[in-house]
C-alpha cells in the first residue's frame, strides 16, 4: 500500500521507494528509506499534505511526493 493510504495515527514500515518517481531522490534524502518505521500524524484540511513522523522528526509531505513511498502495516 501507499503511504497516503494510511489513517491518521497508523504506524507502518517503508518497504520500497519508487526510484522512477521524480521526487524519489529528495524523499530518500529526507530519510524515507526502506525499513524505516513511519507514522501518519495528521492530514491537512484538504487531505493534503500529510504530516508524518520519521526518524524522530515531523515532516510535512505532499501526497504527490508520498506516492513513491510504499509501506506495509
Amino acid at each position, binding site marked *: 500500500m501507499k503511504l497516503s493510504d494510511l489513517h491518521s495515527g497508523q504506524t507502518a514500515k517503508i518497504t520500497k521507494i519508487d526510484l522512477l518517481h*521524480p521526487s524519489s531522490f529528495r524523499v530518500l534524502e529526507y530519510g524515507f*528509506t526502506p525499513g524505516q518505521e513511519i507514522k501518519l500524524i495528521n492530514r491537512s*484540511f484538504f487531505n*493534503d*499534505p500529510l504530516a508524518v513522523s520519521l526518524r524522530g522528526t515531523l515532516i*510535512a*509531505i505532499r501526497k504527490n511526493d508520498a506516492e513513491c513511498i510504499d509501506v506495509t502495516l
Partner: protein
Amino acid sequence: MSQTNLNLPLITLVGPPNSGKTTLFNYLSGKKYKTVNYPGSTIEYSITKFLDRFEIGGNLMDSPGIVSMVPNSPDEEVTISNLYDHPVYGKPAVLVVTVDVSQFSRHLLLVKQILECGFRVIVALTMNDILEGKKFTVKETELAKRLKCKVVKINPRTGYGIDKLIEYVKEETAISNLSTAVAKEFEDESIIKIYKEIEEIENNVIERNDQTNLEKANESLQIKGQTSALNKPDELTLKIDSLLLHKYWGLITFATVMGLLFASIFWIASPLMDLVDSLFQSLSSLVVSGHEHNWFTDLVSSGIIGGTGAVLVFLPQIIMLFFILGLLEDSGYLARGAMLIDKPLSKLGLNGRSFVPMLSGFACAIPAIMAARTITNKKERLLTIFIIPLMSCSARLPVYGLLLSFLLPGKFLLSGIILSLIYLFGILSSFVISVIINKYQKVFLKAEDNSSFIMELPVYRIPKLKNVLNNTYNNAIQYVKKAGPIILVFSILIWALTYFPNNNPVVPNEENLNTEQIQELIDSDRIANSYASEIGKFIEPVMKPIGLDWRVGVSLIATFAAREVFVSSLALMFKITGEGDNINESLVNAMREAKYGGTGRPLFTTATTIGLIVFFVFALQCISTIAITRKETGGWRIPILQIVFYSGIAYLFTFLTVNGLNLLGIS
C-alpha cells in the same frame, strides 16, 4: 567585511536547516544574526572573524542550510559549489558541521556525504538537552572513531563545549590551510547505502542513560526496541499539533492567527503612529516659528523634517509586523502555516513554501523576495516573486492612511475595516494574477519543474523574547537605513523642484490681504512656475483620464523612490505649513481645497481618491523591489514584465474605477 583578512584560514559552518548553525555562528563571532525556528532562515553567506577571546587567526563563514550535498535548485547549486571554493574567500581549511542529535540519523547524512567528498570535518553535536530529555545520550568518542573525524558536544546558547570546539579548530587548521575536497555524485542507491551505515552507527553510539548495565546488555541484543523509542518525536509537539494540524481546528486556528496578526498591525500601532506624527509636526513648526521665512527654513521644515517624518511615521507598524512574525517564526508555527496552505496555493501554481515570503511581503517586498529562495521549484519561485508586490507592504500604509482619512474623516473603525478590505483585495488579486501567469507560464516564466513539497516541521518552543526583540530591532534599523536616505533625498529633490527657479515670486501687494494670505499666494505662484510644473505638463495628458492633475502625477513619479514619498510629496505640492495640526490633518484640509487646474472643480473627489487607492494596490512603484527582483531572478525579463503588467493594470483599473463611479453619479 573589513575585518576579514583573505590570507587567514577559512572555517565554514555547514549544517541542515534548523540545526543551530547560525546560533553557533553568533556565539563565535559575537554578532546577532537572525536565528529562527523555520527551515531555511539563513539565505546568504555571512563572513566575519572570531571573537578575540578565542585567539583564532581565521575567518568564520556561515552558509545557508542544506539537507544534502546534492543541489536541488540553482541556489543550492551555488551554495554547495561555494563550500568547495568560495569565489571571494577561497577554499576552507575545515568545515564545522552541526548535527541536531534529536534528528541524529537525518542530519548525519550530510556529515557522511561531506566526509566522502574529502573535507576536513569537525562534527558539532547540538540540542543534546533534547535528546537527554528522551533519556538518550550520544557517545562522542565512539562516534568520532566511527566517522574518523573530531566530534564535540556543544550548546551554542550557553557556551558549553565551545572551548573544546575551538581547540579542535586550532588543531585542524594547523594541519592544513586548504581543503582538497572534490565534488562527488550521489545516486539513489548511494543515499540508501549511507543511511544503512548511519543506522549501524546510530545503534552503536546512542545509548539510554537511565538503564543499568544489565539492561543495556539485554537491549543490545534487541536493537530494534531502542531505535523505535529514540525515533519518537517530541511529545509536547505532537500534542500541540493534534490541535494545530487538525483537519478543522487547524484551519480555524490558522485563520484566527492570521486575523489577529493583521488586526494588531492596524489597531495597536495606530496610536503610536499618531504620536510620531505629531512629534515631527511640532518639530517642523518649531523651526518655522521665530525664524524668517526663507528658502533655508523652508528646506528644513518641509524638505528635511517633513521627509524624515514621512519615513518614521509608519515605523511602529513595521516594528509590530516584524515582532509578531518573529514570534510566529520562533515558535515553529510558520512551518505549519506553510503546510496548511500548500494545497490551496498549489492550485494557484504556487507552493506551501511561498507562504512565508508572501507573509513577509506585508512588511517589505525586499526581504520577501529574498526569502523566496527557499522555494526549490523554479517556476513556483518565479511566480511567488511575481506576485509579492501585490502583498500590501508597509510603505503603502501611510498612503492608504492619508487617502482614507480624506474619504472617511473621523471614522476610525470604518477606516480600519476598509483598510483590511484593501489588503484582502490585494491578496485576492494576487491569486487571480497568479492563475493567469501560471496558465501562460511558458510565455511569462519560461520555467517548468517537478512541483514538490517536503518540509520539516520543527519542534515547538516558547519564543525567546530577547531574540525576537533583537531581530525586530535589527529589521527596523535596517529598514530605516535603507529607506531613510532615499526618501530624504527625494524629499529634498521634490522640494527643490517645487521651490525653484521661481524661488522669490513677486505678488501684487494688495492692502486687504494679511500676511498668511500673501504667503499662500507666494507659495502657489512659486509652484505654478516651478520645474515640477514643467515636468507635470508632460504627464498631464496621462493624468486627465483618471481625473487627476500634474501635481498628483509628479507625486506618483516620485513614489518610484519609495511609495511613502507620495505623502510627503503631496504635502510639498499642496504646500502644507500645518501649524498646530498633524501632517495628515492639514494635508487632508489642503486636499479638500485643491481645485482642478484653475477651475472651481475639486481635484480630490470620492471617485478620484478611490481611484488612487486602486492605483496603489497594483502599481509597482518601488525601485528597490525592481532591483532585487532583477538580482534574484538573474535578469531583466521578470522585473520588466512586472513593471509593464502592473502599471498597465493599475492605470486601467484606476481609469475604470474613476469613470465607473462617475457614471454611477459618484463624483
